[in-house]
């Protein structure tokens, strides 16, 4: 199945792109999508303990299931205001 991955701020810089399409094996979770990304780009791993995640623009968890067509986002610690 196919998901859209969104990366922001420094995660986007590290990956070289803020939006990418990835094919992942079902059943997938946010965590398994992340592991595939880290395998491609080990520099992202530093964010594993501090980032937040979202599915279809709602906060989610690494253990949450991911379905075909979902948008999965990985968010570094925030600094708005």
């Amino acid at each position: 199945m196919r998901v859209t991955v969104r990366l922001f701020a420094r995660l986007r810089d590290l990956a070289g792109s803020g939006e990418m399409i990835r094919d992942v094996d079902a059943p997938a979770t946010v965590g398994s999508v992340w592991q595939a990304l880290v395998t491609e780009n080990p520099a992202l791993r530093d964010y594993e303990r501090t980032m937040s995640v979202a599915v279809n623009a709602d906060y989610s968890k690494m253990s949450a299931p991911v379905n075909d067509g979902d948008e999965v986002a990985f968010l570094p610690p925030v600094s708005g205001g």
Partner: protein
Amino acid sequence: MALVAVTADPLDVEGLTAEITRAGAGDGAVTTFIGLVREQNQGRRVSFLEYEAYEPLAVRALERILDEARETWPTARLGVHHRIGRLQLGEASIIIVAVSPHRADAFAACRYTIERVKQIVPIWKHEHFEGGDVWLEGATADPDDEAARQAAQRIACA
């Protein structure tokens, strides 16, 4: 004018205030918070900031914060606009307007909102300074972190 916005346009605090106070003969207090791009940050001389947002989630998070504030201060009415894109020194990055019958609730709801923005809204500052640039990283965003929410409430009521 929408009460919640994430926008690349300059912020309009007078317009947002007018929107919230329009039908408010019972209002006795308006508090406003305006966040500005500051020249000095952690010893660096800032040239400009670029703000990036995950816009749909940022809007949802801002709406959630206003819901939380209204639950704690039921008489308060609130609006919050956050700017994104490139901002020069002195420009407003965020405006918060809180209106209520009495000043205590307006001040507290306004303070609570900015504290929560810094905790859970997916917006990032990319600081460009003399000699380099850096992504600023603050809080790990977790809207269900009750301890963080209570910390914001304590600051608001201090």
